[in-house]
């Protein structure tokens, strides 16, 4: 897979219009193209386009199927749980993205200055908890946050938390979800950032050190600006994924004895509308809100950073 490894990858030429030796061969290949993409195209229509269009249809109609304009969006926006849900994930995202910028970049820079083999061991350890993404990571952290069994008991009791209920009070949740996201996800980003740092030509760094730039100066003035695009890539993807928070608040609220709202995050609120109120129109309206957020992230990433090649 060396072709896609960052330290070796090169801008790939993309399909060039080489004139094919036989003309009707080329036409045949056009038909073949349709056949080769047909399976994927079908899946895209059925499970990408159709659900999106159907959600849009529901979001703009009443339960009787009449067009109602934006009223589903306005009514869900006025729901008492709507703003708090977005505030919750906003707070969570603030902590999570800040920790990505400060800690992930810091650790990647540190590892980059170590011998390759030493840093490989660290990278592997940091990356490992990624195997427990999702429900498993939440369960592990419920143990870690429960002062009665936690190996971090001394830290928790330092904050005066003596039972799980005290650790997972609602005001702590954004931080707790950021810690879980960091535990399971930071390692992957450290590896990616490290890969990007490895791509910086050595001559550049040598020139900097000849000019008398110290470790800090080199890191801040040379290394970080050169991997700017990767930092943007990381932040946008983490932001997009973060807006969708669902499994973490759902499981933690399971263990909170009703302390935590079942509509803590926007996705949970949409779920509550669909499953408890049977109001598919409202659920669709919130889904469309979230889809637009996701699409905006994708648009920024594709059009502004030009990291992805589409030719």
């Amino acid at each position, binding site marked *: *897979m060396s072709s*896609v490894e960052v330290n070796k990858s090169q*801008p*790939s030429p*993309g399909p060039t219009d080489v004139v094919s*030796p036989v003309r009707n*061969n080329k036409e045949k*290949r056009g038909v*073949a193209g*349709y056949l*080769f993409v047909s*399976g*994927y*195209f079908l*899946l*895209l229509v059925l*499970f*990408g386009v159709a659900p999106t269009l*159907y959600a849009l249809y529901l979001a703009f109609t009443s339960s009787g199927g009449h067009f109602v304009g934006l009223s589903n969006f306005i009514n869900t926006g006025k729901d008492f749980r709507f703003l708090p849900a977005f505030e919750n994930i906003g707070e969570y995202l603030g902590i999570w993205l800040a920790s990505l910028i400060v800690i992930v970049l810091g650790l990647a820079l*540190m590892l980059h200055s170590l011998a390759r083999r030493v840093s490989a061991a660290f990278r*592997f*350890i940091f*990356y*490992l*908890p990624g*195997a*427990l*993404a*999702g*429900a*498993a990571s939440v*369960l592990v952290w419920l*143990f870690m946050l429960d002062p009665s*069994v936690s*190996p971090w*008991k001394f830290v928790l009791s330092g904050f005066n938390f003596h039972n799980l209920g005290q650790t997972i009070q609602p005001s702590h949740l954004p931080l707790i979800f950021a810690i879980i996201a960091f*535990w399971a996800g930071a390692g992957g980003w450290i*590896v990616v950032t490290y*890969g990007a740092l490895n791509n910086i030509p050595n001559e550049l760094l040598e020139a900097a050190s000849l000019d008398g730039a110290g470790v800090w100066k080199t890191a801040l003035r040379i290394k970080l600006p050169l991997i700017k695009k990767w930092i943007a*890539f990381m932040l946008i993807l983490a932001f997009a*994924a973060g807006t*969708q928070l*669902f*499994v973490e608040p759902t499981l933690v609220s*399971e*263990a909170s004895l009703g302390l935590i709202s079942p509509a803590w995050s926007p*996705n949970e609120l949409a779920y509550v509308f*669909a*499953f408890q109120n049977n109001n*598919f129109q409202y659920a669709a309206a919130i*889904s469309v809100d979230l*889809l637009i*957020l*996701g*699409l905006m*992230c994708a*648009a920024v*990433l594709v059009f502004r950073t030009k990291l992805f*090649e589409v*030719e």
Partner: protein
Amino acid sequence: MKIFNRLWTKTLGFIVLLAFTAFFIVPVIWLLLAPTKTDHQLIFGNPFSFGSFHNLAHAIRVTFTYQDYALLTWVKNSAIYSFGGIAIALVASIPAGYALAFTNFIGRRTLLGITLFVMIMPATALVLPLFLEANAVHAIGSPISVILPFSFFPFGVYLSYIFYSSSVPRDLLNAARIDGCNEWNVFRKIALPLARPVVALVAFFAFVANWNNFFLPFVMLPSNSNYPLPIGLQDLLSSTPAFNPGIGGDVPILRPELAVATIVAMAPVLIVFLFAQRSLVSGMLAGATKE
């Protein structure tokens, strides 16, 4: 003075690295040791002690036999959904990546653009719309309602496209054409065998994504006998007296048993990580190419 400063920075850096190492690894070690202890030992003993094999066997037996081997059903379901999704995703995405890289058809660029967008958008954003769609066609509760959305895997198409357009020379395919291969055979005999590494990569990524997916099966599959492992974990969590004192006093699932179930849930992904670390990392970087 300067040397002293540098030494100081180095030591400090090492302490920071060790602290983060502890942060990342301690929960894993604790989890692996938990099933060897009793609930009582977990509360009062040293968190990093090993209990006994007797306890371990007991915890495993209780976890697996709970509710008539429900855990095994969940493992089976997870495997069916994950591998079913991977199989269809591979059949659909490898030829699609090939066609996007090497053939010309109307709408090719548009398809590539849409693929990119859907790939970056978090998959979770489509879960409720998918639910509404499945509900409209009365597919809720059927394994198909999870397997088919799993098999829509635009990242796989993108990886396959990148692989073909950057690592397979067009001349190689043209040579086969001149030798009289038709388009299907060019793909089947030349392009597909070359794609082995990318097939593995797509399969790994699809596996990790499918195996850990919570939200989609959570809305699609309401009955216990259809749960995959993550929903099973949630089910255990909601019935254990370890986190819900007062309810379900007769449920035998305590912390050591919850730890066993968590380990069972994570083990396959952990194994994939251990054996495929390098290719997974290279794939993460392939999500975007260097300028």
